[in-house]
């Protein structure tokens, strides 16, 4: 049997370090065979320790893997499949309450509460619905209404174009599509968009939406038309059918081009064509056109909104009461003192019977302040002063409001 020098040295060290084999007083030194036996025993223990270490390392790796899987499961929202419907469904909304103290009214009104629902059927097919309660209580003799302001299915054609079918907000003006209270100045929506466009204006139909080039977008749709009447002096606001068993004898079309090529600047123009403004109920009224243009600028703390809109109604009926021309404009500079406080002023002028010779034009000046304690919550105050032509009464006073979106 041969032993190399290393083995013998190791044996010597082990012998010296192992109390069991320490030289006993008076005892004889271990033989080479005894040393070899000790070495074998130690070797076995080393091998056992190695196996134990490998086992521990494997367990640690297994624990790491399980921990990773647990974290991933938590991040993914738990058990596979659970919550998938909720993941594809979103709920939002907004609301606003107003206190009006003007010559025409002194009242508190929860003007609007809107609930929004969206659901993704697939990555390229979704639905959007918006239900609105106006003036807090609806039904019976109450002033309120429950309305479906939006309810459409949208299909993506590609990454630049989509189409929708259902009830949707028409692409016209600044406020018609974006009117959540924190997004605009003034307690009430401005009278020009309200009476001339007329905001909020929705209709049932189908629309194409897309992007022509970076910063350039378009909308084009065909939808239910207005149904106004001589009894209302052909005022366009009275003609909204709101997709409630809407008369579709004479459809309408709306097209918009919008440019947003520089951050903070929007310029857009809309044309709307009504093939018959009374849906054939009034032979003295015919088709009608709306032309609208606006800009919306917000550069740093400075803001400016300006809008012009004009209706041309054909037919002897509208012409006889001066409603063949209905037009208005406003200009609204604003300044944000801080991220949370902004002030504005607005000059509005509009006339729903601009085609006659009498004084039916209305003018309104507004100044006010918005305070956003949170980006989605706003407190508003403004003063309005009218300077209407002729013998029309002025409606002066102040308004307070609180609004939110989520």
């Amino acid at each position, binding site marked *: 049997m041969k032993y190399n020098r290393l083995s013998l040295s190791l044996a010597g060290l082990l012998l010296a370090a192992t109390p069991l084999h320490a030289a006993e007083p008076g005892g004889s030194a271990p033989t080479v065979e005894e040393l070899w036996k000790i070495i074998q025993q130690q070797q076995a223990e080393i091998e056992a320790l190695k196996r134990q270490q490998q086992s521990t390392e494997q367990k640690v790796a297994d624990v790491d893997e399980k921990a990773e899987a647990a974290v991933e499961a938590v991040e993914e929202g738990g058990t596979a499949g659970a919550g998938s419907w909720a993941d594809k469904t979103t709920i939002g909304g907004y609301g606003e309450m107003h206190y009006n103290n003007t010559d025409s009214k002194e009242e508190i009104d929860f003007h609007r509460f809107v609930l929004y629902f969206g659901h*993704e059927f697939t990555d390229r097919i979704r639905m959007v619905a918006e239900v609105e309660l106006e003036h807090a209580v609806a039904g019976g003799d109450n002033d309120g209404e429950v309305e479906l302001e939006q309810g459409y299915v949208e299909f993506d054609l590609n990454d630049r174009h989509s189409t929708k079918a259902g009830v949707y907000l028409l692409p016209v003006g600044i406020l018609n599509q974006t009117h959540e209270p924190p997004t605009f100045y003034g307690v009430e929506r401005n009278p020009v968009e309200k009476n001339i466009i007329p905001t909020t204006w929705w209709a049932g139909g189908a629309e194409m939406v897309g992007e022509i080039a970076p910063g350039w977008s378009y909308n084009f749709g065909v939808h239910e038309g207005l149904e106004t009447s001589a009894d209302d002096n052909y005022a366009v606001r009275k003609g909204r059918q709101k997709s409630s068993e809407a008369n579709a004898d004479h459809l309408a079309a709306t097209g918009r081009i919008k440019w947003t090529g520089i951050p903070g*600047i929007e310029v857009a123009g809309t044309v709307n064509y009504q093939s018959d403004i009374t849906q054939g109920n009034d032979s003295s009224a015919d088709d009608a056109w709306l032309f609208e243009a606006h800009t919306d600028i917000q550069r740093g703390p400075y803001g400016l909104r300006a809008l012009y809109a004009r209706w041309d109604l054909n037919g002897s009926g509208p012409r006889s009461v001066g409603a063949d021309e209905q037009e208005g404009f406003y200009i609204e500079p604003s300044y944000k003192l801080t991220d949370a406080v902004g002030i504005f002023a607005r000059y509005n002028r509009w006339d729903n019977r601009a085609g006659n010779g009498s004084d039916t034009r209305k003018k309104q000046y507004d100044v006010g302040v918005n305070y956003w304690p949170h*980006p989605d919550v706003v407190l508003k105050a403004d003063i309005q002063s009218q300077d209407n032509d002729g013998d029309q009464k002025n409606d002066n006073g102040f308004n307070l409001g609180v609004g939110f979106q989520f």
Partner: protein
Amino acid sequence: MILIRSLPLVLLLACSMALARGTYQEPADFIAETFDSSPPSPDVVWLRGETRETTTAILGHKYPSLRVRYWGDALRSAWILEEIGKDQPITVGLVVSDGRLERIKVLVFRESRGWEVRHPFFTDQFRDIGLTAGELDLNRDIDGISGATLSVRALKKLARLALYLHTRIPSGDDTP
């Protein structure tokens, strides 16, 4: 009149041509591009304690994950982050270098409105932007886009988040 009457049908028929939408660059491709096709292995910043609190403050809600994955190191890092605009998540790739935003790019946009935020004419405003010391706000104004308020807000939050998380990456000196 015939055109007007037939257009709804034409538009509805066009729906059948639907294709994929909204993915402008795959996140993996963004990472590869950022590191010249040789991306490092990803690492994570765990959202614990102060890091989680600050992340919540920046977003206005809890980040929907226990950790955030990144590529790179304390000098230059790349992030793929998501934030909801109005009702859908916007996936954004961000690169932070030396405490400044080197690049921000919208990778996947799923919202129905506000898609203008993906264009360079908007995202170029973020180049070299950093954070203020105290409030962790962006140190420059970002002009918004009318009608895309919520998408703009989402991108501003993600820019702040990436810049903040970059500071939570251990530097080489901190490595044991």
